[in-house]
C-alpha cells in the first residue's frame, strides 16, 4: 500500500511547497470536486511517501510541471502564473510548420552548452506527423543550419483518443480493457496501474498466485519492449544481421505470450482483483523451456553486439541527458536510471510481491547508457520470471473486487518505459467519477529537446529510439 500524506496549500503557494519538499513531481492535474470549484492536485514523491498537495488555483513554475500546466490550461482554461511558454499542448493547430525559437531568457536555454545557431540559412524541418517508416504519429520541428540541431520542438497529442473519459463512462468491470489499450505495447503495466488503484479504492487483497502471474507477465512485457528498442537501434546503425537476430528474439517472445494468454501483447490477462487467466503446469513447462533457450540465444547475440564498434560508436555520447535535467523534468524509467537517478516503481511503491532485485543504473546519461540499463534490466527480468515461476503456489487467481470505501486512490506500475500512474476518484461503491492517467512517456517526452542540445541531425533516430517513447501512452 502506498503511504499517503495529504496537505492543502494556499492559492499561489504550490510552487513554493514543491520547492520545499524537494521531491519528484509525479503528477499535476485539475479536478472538480462535486459541486465545488476546480482545484489543482499535485502528487509528489518525497521521502518514502507520496504527498498530495491540493491548491485552489494555479502557479507552479517548475520544469516538470510545464507540460501538466499546459494540459490543464488546454482542458480547464486555468492559466498558470509565470509559465515560460504557454502554448497549446493538447489542442494545438495540427498544421503548424514553423517553430519559434525560445527567447534568450527562456529557462529551457539555461543549461545549453552549444552556441545558438541563428541568421540566414537556418531553417525548420517539419518532421511528421506522418513520418518515413512505420512509426507512431508525432511531430518534430527541427531547426537546423544543415547538420547541427539548433532547436527541436516536439509536438504530441495527435493520437488523443479520450481514454480517461472512456474509463469513467464504461461499466467498471470493463474499464480495464480501455486501460490496456492506452499504450498497446505496455498493456500489462497500464492494466496493473489501473487495477492497483481500483483495488486500493476498496482495499481488495490480491491472491498470491495472481501476484506471481502478474509479475511473470509484466517482466515478459519489459523484455519485448527492450528488444524493440534494440531492434530499432540496430536498424538505425544499418546493422542488418543484428536487426534480424534481435527481431527474431522478439518474435519468439510474442509467440510465447500468444500461447500463454492468447494475445501476443498480453491483453485480457490482468483484471482488478487478480488475473483472468491461470498458468497451468503444461504452460509453465513451455514458459521455462522457451525462456531457457531464449536466454542463451540472447546472451550470445548481445555479446556480438557489444563487440560491434560501428554500433557502439553511434550510441556513445549521443543524446546526453544530465542528472540535473533528468531530475528537473521528472524523468522516469530507463531514461532516468541511465542518468544516475535511483528509482524504480517496483521497489519504491512496492506492489504484487516483487522480491528484492538490483535496480539497474548508469551514470553516463547518453544513448549507450540507456541501452546498457535496458540490457541489465533484461537480465534482471529473466531472474524475476524464474523466481516468480518458482514461487507459484496453488490457489485462487482472482478475488472479487470489493465495493469502494475510499474516495480516491493512486495506482502505479513500472512499465518498460518507466513509472505509469492512474489516479481514480470513486463515485459511490462501484463507479468512477474521475480518472487521470500519466504514462511514463508523458514525462520523458519533456526532455526531448534537451537531449538534442548540440547534437547532429544524423543522430536523430538513434537518440529518439534510445528514449523508447510511446506517443500513444503520452497522448492517451
Amino acid at each position, binding site marked *: 500500500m502506498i503511504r499517503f500524506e495529504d496537505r492543502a496549500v494556499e492559492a499561489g503557494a504550490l510552487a513554493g511547497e514543491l520547492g520545499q519538499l524537494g521531491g519528484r513531481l509525479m503528477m499535476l492535474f485539475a479536478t472538480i470536486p462535486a459541486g465545488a470549484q476546480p482545484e489543482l492536485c499535485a502528487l509528489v514523491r518525497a521521502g518514502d511517501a507520496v504527498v498530495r498537495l491540493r491548491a485552489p488555483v494555479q502557479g507552479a513554475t517548475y520544469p516538470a510541471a510545464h507540460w501538466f500546466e499546459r494540459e490543464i490550461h488546454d482542458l480547464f482554461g486555468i492559466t498558470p502564473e509565470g509559465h515560460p511558454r504557454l502554448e497549446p499542448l493538447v489542442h*494545438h493547430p*495540427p*498544421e503548424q510548420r514553423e517553430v519559434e525559437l525560445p527567447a534568450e531568457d527562456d529557462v529551457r536555454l539555461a543549461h545549453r552548452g552549444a552556441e545558438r545557431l541563428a541568421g540566414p540559412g537556418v531553417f525548420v524541418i517539419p518532421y511528421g*506527423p*506522418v513520418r*518515413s*517508416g*512505420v*512509426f*507512431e*504519429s508525432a511531430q518534430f520541428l527541427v531547426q537546423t543550419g544543415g547538420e547541427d540541431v539548433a532547436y527541436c520542438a516536439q509536438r504530441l*497529442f*495527435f*493520437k*488523443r*483518443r*479520450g481514454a480517461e*473519459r*472512456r474509463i469513467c463512462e*464504461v*461499466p467498471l468491470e*470493463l474499464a480495464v*480493457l*480501455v486501460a490496456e*489499450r*492506452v*499504450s*498497446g*505495447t505496455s*498493456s500489462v503495466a497500464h492494466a496493473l496501474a489501473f487495477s492497483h488503484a481500483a483495488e486500493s479504492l476498496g482495499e481488495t487483497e490480491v491472491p498470491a498466485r495472481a501476484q506471481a502471474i502478474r509479475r511473470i507477465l509484466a517482466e515478459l512485457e519489459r523484455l519485448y519492449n527492450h528488444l*524493440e528498442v534494440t*531492434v530499432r537501434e540496430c536498424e538505425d546503425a544499418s*546493422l542488418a*544481421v*543484428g536487426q*534480424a*537476430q534481435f*527481431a*527474431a528474439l*522478439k*518474435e519468439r517472445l*510474442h*509467440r510465447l505470450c*500468444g*500461447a500463454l494468454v*492468447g*494475445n*501476443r*501483447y498480453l*491483453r*485480457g490477462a490482468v483484471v482488478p482483483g487478480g488475473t483472468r487467466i491461470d498458468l497451468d503446469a503444461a504452460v509453465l513447462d513451455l514458459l521455462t523451456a522457451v525462456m531457457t533457450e531464449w536466454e542463451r540465444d540472447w546472451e*550470445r*547475440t548481445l555479446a*556480438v553486439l557489444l*563487440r*560491434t564498434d560501428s554500433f557502439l560508436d553511434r550510441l556513445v555520447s549521443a543524446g546526453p541527458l544530465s542528472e540535473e535535467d533528468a531530475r528537473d523534468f521528472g524523468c522516469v524509467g530507463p531514461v532516468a536510471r541511465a542518468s544516475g537517478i535511483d528509482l524504480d516503481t517496483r521497489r519504491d511503491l512496492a506492489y504484487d510481491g516483487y522480491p528484492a532485485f538490483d535496480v539497474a543504473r548508469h551514470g553516463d546519461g547518453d544513448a549507450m547508457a540507456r541501452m546498457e540499463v535496458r540490457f541489465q534490466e533484461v537480465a534482471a527480468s529473466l531472474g524475476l520470471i524464474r523466481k516468480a515461476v518458482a514461487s507459484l503456489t496453488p490457489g485462487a487467481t482472482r478475488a472479487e473486487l470489493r465495493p469502494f470505501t475510499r474516495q480516491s486512490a493512486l495506482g502505479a506500475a513500472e512499465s518498460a518505459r518507466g513509472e505509469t500512474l492512474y489516479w481514480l476518484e470513486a463515485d459511490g461503491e462501484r463507479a468512477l467519477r474521475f480518472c487521470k492517467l500519466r504514462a511514463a512517456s508523458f514525462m520523458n517526452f519533456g526532455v526531448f529537446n534537451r537531449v538534442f542540445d548540440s547534437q547532429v541531425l544524423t543522430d536523430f533516430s538513434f537518440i529518439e529510439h534510445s528514449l523508447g517513447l*510511446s*506517443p*500513444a*501512452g503520452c497522448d492517451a
Partner: protein
Amino acid sequence: MIRWFVRGVTQRRLTTRYPRAEEPPPAGFRARALLDPSATNPRQASRAVQACLPEALTHDHQHRLQLDAARCIGCGLCVEAVTDGALAIDPGYELASRGRRRLVVGDVQEADIAAELLGGPFRRSLHIRHVDAGSDGAVEQEIAALLNPYYDMQRLGLFLTASPRHADVLLVTGPVTEPMEGPLRRTYEAMPEPRVVVAAGTDACSGSIWTEPEVRGGVDRVLPVDVYIPGDPPTPIALLHGLLLASGRARDASAPSWHADAARSRAGAA
C-alpha cells in the same frame, strides 16, 4: 562483422511458408468471438451484450444476437458471460475481408456472400505506405514484425515505402483521431491512382472501444476502405493475408462461420 556472419549462417531457417502452407495460431489464441446464430435465449443474449465493451455484440427486439467481427477485440468476456454455449472463442487465422458487412454474423446478407478470389488493380508486388491515425502502438510493431526473419514480407513482393508518391497501398492503423484526419487525407491525395486503402486493426476497421468526439470511428468514415483486417492487434499472418487480399492473391475470409470455425477451434484445442 565476421561474428555477425557466423551468427547469421549458423541458424536454421525460420521463415514461414505462408501462404503456401497454413500457419494457424496456437490453441487458445483469442482473435475474435464466434456466435452460434441458432441461439435464441433472450436472457443469455442480454448478458453477452452487456459484457461487450466495443459493442460488437448487439441484439434486435427479438433478442437475436448479431456479432460484428470488425468491432470484436477478442477479450472473451462474452464467452464467460453466457452459460448456454452460444458463443465461443476463435483463434482466428485469415481474417481480412473486402467488405465491411461481410464481417457481420447474423446479418441478413450473410447468405449471399461466397468466398471468392476478387480482382483488383494490382496483381503482384505492392508498395505500402503506413499511416498511424491514432493506434495504440502495438499494430505498428506487428507491421514492423513483417520484416523479421519469421515473416519476411519482401519474399512476397511486399515493400514498405517512405513516400506516398511511390505507394500502391495506404495501410492505416487507429480509429482516426481528430488531428490525424487532415494528414491522413493529404497522404491519400498524394498517392497516384490506382490505390488501395487497407484498415489494419479493429480500431481502424470500426473505431472499436473509442468513441466521438475524439475519434472519427474507423478509417471508412474518412476514406474509402478496400480491405479490412480486424484484430487487436492483428497478427503478422493476418496482416500478410490482408495485404495479399489487396493484391488479389488471397481469398476473402468473409463472415466467421460458426460451424466451420467452431469445429476448427475444437480440433485446435484437442
